[in-house]
């Protein structure tokens, strides 16, 4: 347990030191939301039905973009090796990265929700919607973090990572967009979509935690 808190603290500190990269992820998602609002504003008078899709594609791209660099620094500095031969287990190493990525992404997502609330004049900061965002983010961040362990040894991984992860995330995207839409009153019933999100989040986290030790081996 002490080693888990130590690793999590280390990853949060590392994410903070490396905040330039996270800020660019935030800038990217801001630009994406703005671009969508310009593009769709011309096409349709009411942008609200498009909002769930706008938000979640932005979240997913920001998440994949951010996850891509989560092990990069450790691999470049050689500290990934130092962690692997230390008494800390691979699962702990993974949970540290997962926590740091999750917290950083939730901050980015909340900032986008505030931005979208202002731009689209829709109340987005409801407890239900925040719940959807948290569960959805847990679901995708565990898979993208696992896939990011490609580390330094696969060429062209920055392009490969979205190509690998986005098809796997189709169920999550469908569930999250529908749940968000229902939560905004665009359609009836969040419950089934919340269930889908929850199933996906549990499944992906379990798969990632179980498979990471194999992925981390050399």
């Amino acid at each position: 347990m002490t080693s888990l808190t130590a690793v999590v603290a280390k990853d949060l500190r590392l994410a903070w030191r490396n905040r330039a990269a996270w800020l660019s992820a935030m800038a990217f998602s801001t630009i994406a939301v703005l671009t969508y609002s310009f593009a769709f504003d011309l096409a349709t008078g009411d942008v609200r039905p498009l909002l769930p899709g706008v938000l979640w594609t932005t979240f997913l791209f920001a998440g994949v973009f951010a996850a891509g660099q989560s092990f990069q620094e450790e691999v470049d500095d050689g500290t990934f090796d130092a962690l692997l031969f230390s008494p800390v287990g691979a699962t702990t190493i993974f949970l540290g990265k997962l926590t740091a990525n999750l917290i950083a992404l939730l901050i980015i997502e909340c900032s986008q929700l505030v931005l979208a609330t202002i731009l689209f004049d829709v109340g987005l900061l409801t407890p239900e919607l925040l719940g959807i965002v948290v569960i959805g983010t847990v679901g995708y961040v565990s898979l993208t973090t696992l896939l990011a362990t490609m580390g330094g040894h696969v060429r062209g991984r920055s392009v490969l990572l979205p190509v690998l992860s986005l098809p796997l995330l189709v169920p999550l995207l469908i569930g999250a967009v529908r749940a968000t839409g229902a939560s905004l009153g665009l359609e009836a019933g969040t419950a089934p979509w919340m269930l889908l999100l929850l199933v996906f989040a549990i499944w992906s986290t379990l798969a990632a935690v179980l498979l990471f030790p194999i992925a981390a081996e050399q």
Partner: protein
Amino acid sequence: MSTLLLRVYDWRWSVLPPVTGIAMMAMIVGALVAAPREIIEGEVQRLMYLHVPSAVIMYLAFSVTAFASVMFLWKRDIRWDALARGAAVVGVFLCGMALATGAIWGKPIWGVYWTWDARLTATLVLFLIYSAYLLARSVAGPLDEQAARYTAIFAIIGVADIPIIQMSVRWWRTLHPQPIVFQPTPALPTEMLAVLALGFIAIAALAAWLIVLQTETERAAQRTSALRAEIDHREIA
């Protein structure tokens, strides 16, 4: 058990090509000549004899990929990686075949080549997942164990994702004709069923043969690069 399997595997060159050829020929003749013309859908319905077996056997090929990936992670024998890749290539090929024949059938029947129906979407997602698998595996060398392990993990997650994809897109929307074959009393006439059964045999034999060919090709690539590494190693030492 394993000696029996090896015995059967020894027959691959003498059994698979003729069986595939004869079954393919029989299926084509059956589909074009023997099977009756469907009253409502017309001639284009004959694509079904290719489409349905491709779609079903594609799942078998991807299951072989997942099984071989599990075996690779368990046994750490690179030969399982060759089988996983070989089966994935054939699975992606069959998947493309199912999508293409479906689109050709869809235009006259549905009025569009493509529609975001549950089954179509799920098949397209599978196509994307395993194309990505092949892409990721091919950027590393045949003997790169780390890349092989990484893509094996990806292949397993991909297969484990299939039920969730199916569930999600089914909730999302459904337009595809409901399965009419695998029911207690199939709703197809007997001639059509017979030709469809031939189609299954033909595509299954073709898939098995292609998987064997592709796996042995990958295996040959592995052995070549092992040989090259061994020569380099000796020259340096």
